[in-house]
C-alpha cells in the first residue's frame, strides 16, 4: 500500500485507540459480547464502529480496466463508502448473479491478473480500508505451489485489511485463517439465511472484521426490496458483538435505512454499483452520488435505532 495511506490509516487508528483506551485481543471482538465493546486491533471493525452505520461498497477490479477501477474507488471513497471490497475475478464465480458475472468477464477479458490487481491496490490512496473478495482457488494458486500464505502476504503488503471468500465455509478455512492472523488481516465469513445452531456458533467464533449477513438465498444481484430473511438473520445474530453487515440485493438508500433500522451495523452494496459502471454515462460521478444516497439512507435508519445497551 502507499505509505501515505498507511500513515493516514494509522493516525486514524491511533485516534480510535486512544478514544477507547487499551486495545484488547482480536479474539475478544469475535466472541459474544464482551466488556470492552469495540476494543479491537481490526482496521475493519474499527472503521465500522467509527463510521456507524457503515457503507460497504463492492466493485469488480478491472471492470472495465484497472485504470478505471482506481477512479471508481476514489469516487466511492469521496461519496461516503466506509469500506471498499474489490473483487479479484475468478473464471467460475458460482456465488454471483448475472450482473457481477458480467463484470468478472469484462475484467478477465481486460487481462486482470492477481499481480496487476495487487499493483492497483499498491497505488490506491483512499481513506476507506480495502478488502479483497475472491474465490479460494485464486488464493491457493498465488505463488509457485498451491498454498494460501503467498497471497495473504502479498495482500498485507498491498495494504488490504481483509479477505472475503464466498466458496470457503468455516470447515475448510483453517489454513487461510491462520495465514490471515499471521499477517494481521481479517477473514470475513458469510452467514446465510440457512445458517443456524452449531454452524452459526462456529462461524461467529471464527469471524473477524464483520459478519457478512447474506440477506437472501441465491446469488448476488440488485433487488427491489429487503428480504424478510434479513430481519430473521439479524435477530439470530443480535447476541454477538462482532459488527454485522447485510448484503445481497441491496440497491437503494431506503433499503439501507430499513436494514440498519433492523439492527445491522453496515450495508453492503455491489450489483447496484456494478450496474452503474456498466451503464452510466459518467460512472465515477454516478458511483459517488449513489454512495451518498446509500450512506444517507443508512444514517436515516440509524436515527431510529436506540444505542445498543451495555450488558
Amino acid at each position, binding site marked *: 500500500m502507499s505509505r501515505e495511506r498507511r500513515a493516514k490509516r494509522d493516525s486514524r487508528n491511533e485516534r480510535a485507540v486512544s478514544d477507547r483506551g487499551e486495545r484488547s485481543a482480536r479474539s475478544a471482538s469475535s466472541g459474544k459480547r464482551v466488556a470492552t465493546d469495540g476494543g479491537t486491533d481490526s482496521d475493519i471493525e474499527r472503521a465500522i464502529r467509527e463510521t456507524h452505520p457503515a457503507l460497504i461498497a463492492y466493485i469488480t477490479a478491472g471492470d472495465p480496466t484497472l485504470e478505471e477501477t482506481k477512479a471508481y474507488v476514489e469516487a466511492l471513497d469521496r461519496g461516503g463508502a466506509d469500506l471498499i471490497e474489490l473483487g479479484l475475478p475468478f473464471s467460475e464465480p458460482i456465488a454471483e448473479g448475472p450482473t457481477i458475472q458480467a463484470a468478472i468477464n469484462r475484467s*478477465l477479458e481486460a487481462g486482470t491478473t492477481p499481480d496487476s490487481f495487487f499493483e492497483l491496490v499498491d497505488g490506491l490512496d483512499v481513506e476507506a480500508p480495502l478488502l479483497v473478495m475472491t474465490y479460494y*482457488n485464486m488464493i491457493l494458486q498465488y505463488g509457485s505451489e*498451491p498454498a494460501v500464505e503467498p497471497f495473504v502476504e502479498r495482500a498485507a503488503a498491498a495494504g488490504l485489511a481483509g479477505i472475503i471468500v*464466498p466458496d*470457503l465455509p468455516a*470447515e475448510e478455512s483453517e489454513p487461510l485463517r491462520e495465514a490471515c492472523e499471521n499477517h494481521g488481516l481479517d477473514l470475513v465469513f458469510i452467514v446465510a439465511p440457512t445458517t*443456524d445452531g452449531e*454452524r452459526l456458533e462456529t462461524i461467529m467464533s471464527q469471524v473477524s472484521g464483520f459478519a457478512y449477513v447474506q440477506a437472501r438465498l441465491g446469488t448476488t444481484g440488485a433487488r427491489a426490496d429487503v428480504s424478510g430473511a434479513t430481519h430473521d438473520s439479524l435477530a439470530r445474530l443480535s447476541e454477538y458483538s462482532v459488527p454485522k453487515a447485510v448484503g445481497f440485493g441491496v440497491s437503494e438508500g431506503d433499503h439501507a435505512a430499513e436494514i440498519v433500522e433492523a439492527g445491522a451495523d453496515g450495508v453492503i452494496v455491489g450489483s447496484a454499483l456494478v450496474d452503474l459502471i456498466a451503464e452510466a454515462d459518467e460512472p465515477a460521478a454516478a458511483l459517488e452520488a449513489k454512495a451518498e444516497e446509500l450512506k444517507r439512507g443508512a444514517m436515516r435508519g440509524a436515527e431510529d435505532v436506540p444505542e445498543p445497551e451495555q450488558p
Partner: protein
Amino acid sequence: MSDSDRDNETSFGSYGGQYVPEALMPALEELEDAYERYVLENEDGFMDDFRARMREFGGRPTPLQRADRLSERYDREVYLKREDLVHGGAHKLNNALGQVLLAKYMGKERIIAETGAGQHGTATAMAAAHLDMPCEIYMGRTDVNRQRPNVYRMRMNGSDVNPVDTGRGTLKEAINATLRDWSKSVETTHYVIGSVVGPHPFPKMVRDFQSVIGTEAREQIQEQAGRLPDSVLACAGGGSNTMGTFHAFVPDEDVGLYAVEAGGSTLEIDEERGIAPNSATLSTGTDGVLHGAMTKLLQSGDGQIMESHSVSAGLDYAGVGPELSYLVDIGRVTPVSVGDEAALEAFHRLSRLEGIIPALESSHALGYLERAAGPAADSASGQGPRAEADEDLGDLVVVNVSGRGDKDLETVLEETEKRDLEAAPDVEVFDR
C-alpha cells in the same frame, strides 16, 4: 471397504472437501446424514428399494460379454461390461435413480441437474418421471447443439431444459448454473450431481451408486473366466463410470486400473488463450479447487479454470473426481489419454467388429486398448512405448462400455467426414 471412519471423512487424502458457499453447507450436512442413514445403513430399506428399481426399471444386472473379435485382434481375452444396456443407454441411470430416490426419501420436492453430453440429464429426467418429481436440467449451449436427441428425450420425460449461455457453454458452465439455482432453492430442492465430483458427500455417494458396475463385473469375470482380470479400463470425464467400475477392484492389487481421459487434439496447453485442447485432467492437471472440491484441474498459473476440449461432450470437463486424483497420486490408478481421432477410430471399430455402437466417451477406453495392444506399431502415433503398455494390460482385460453411441451419431458423421479414418465406413449422405 465399509470402514465407517473412512466413510465419514470428507476427503481423500488432500483431495475432496467442501468448498461451497455457506448457504449450501446446511444442505450438505442434511445430505451427509441421509447418505449415511439410507445408503450406508439401508434405513427404511432404501437400498433394497433402489436395487429393485434398478432391476425392474433400469435393466440390471448388465452382461459382461466376451468380445470375440476384439479378443482375436488384441490376442488376449477382452471382456466388455455392457453399461450401454442400462435403461437410457448409459451408466448414468445408476446414479440418477439413486439420487432422485434419495431426494424422495428426504422429502425434497424438486430436482435439478447439470448435464454435459445430455446422458446424465436424460437419466435424471427418466428417474424423475419414474418417481414423479418435477425436474429442471441445465445444459451448456454448445452441448445443447451437439446433443439434440438428448434434449428432446429430456423434454419427452417432462423435464425442463435450461440452456446456459456463459463461457464455452459446456459442462463446467452447466454446473455453475445448477449450483446457482441450488443456492437459491436449497431448502426444497435436491441437486443430482452427475459424476463423482462436487463437495462431500457427492463424490462418495455417486461412487457408491455406481459401484454396482464393478461389483457385478468382478463376480462375472470370475465366473466366466475363472479369475480376476489383469486390467480394467474405463474412460474418465468426471469419473463416475470410472470409480463405479474400479471401486470393487481397488483392493485387488494385482488388477491394473486404467483411467482413460480425453486427449482431445493435443495435450499441449494454450496458456495464452486459457485453452486446453483436451480434458486430460489426471494426466496433466494441477491441484486446485473447483466446484466444491480440491482435485486435479486444468488451470492457468493464476488459477483461472481453462476451457477444455474433447470430441466427446461427456468427457469435456476441466476437473475430475477427487478420489481419482487421490488414487492416481498413490499410484493405484494409471491415467492415460486417447485423442479425438483415436476415439473416433475405436467408435467405428467396435461398431463394425462387435455390432455395438459405443458412446464416444466409452470409445476412448476402447481406443486405449488399440493403442496399447493393437496390431499397428505405436511408433507412428508417438504416444509412448507400446510393448510396455501392452504387457501391462495383461491377458485378461475388462473394458467398461459406459454407454451406447446413438446420441453421438451426428457428431461422428461430422467428425468422420473431416478425417481420413481407417475404421470408418462410407458416411457420405445419400443423394436424394
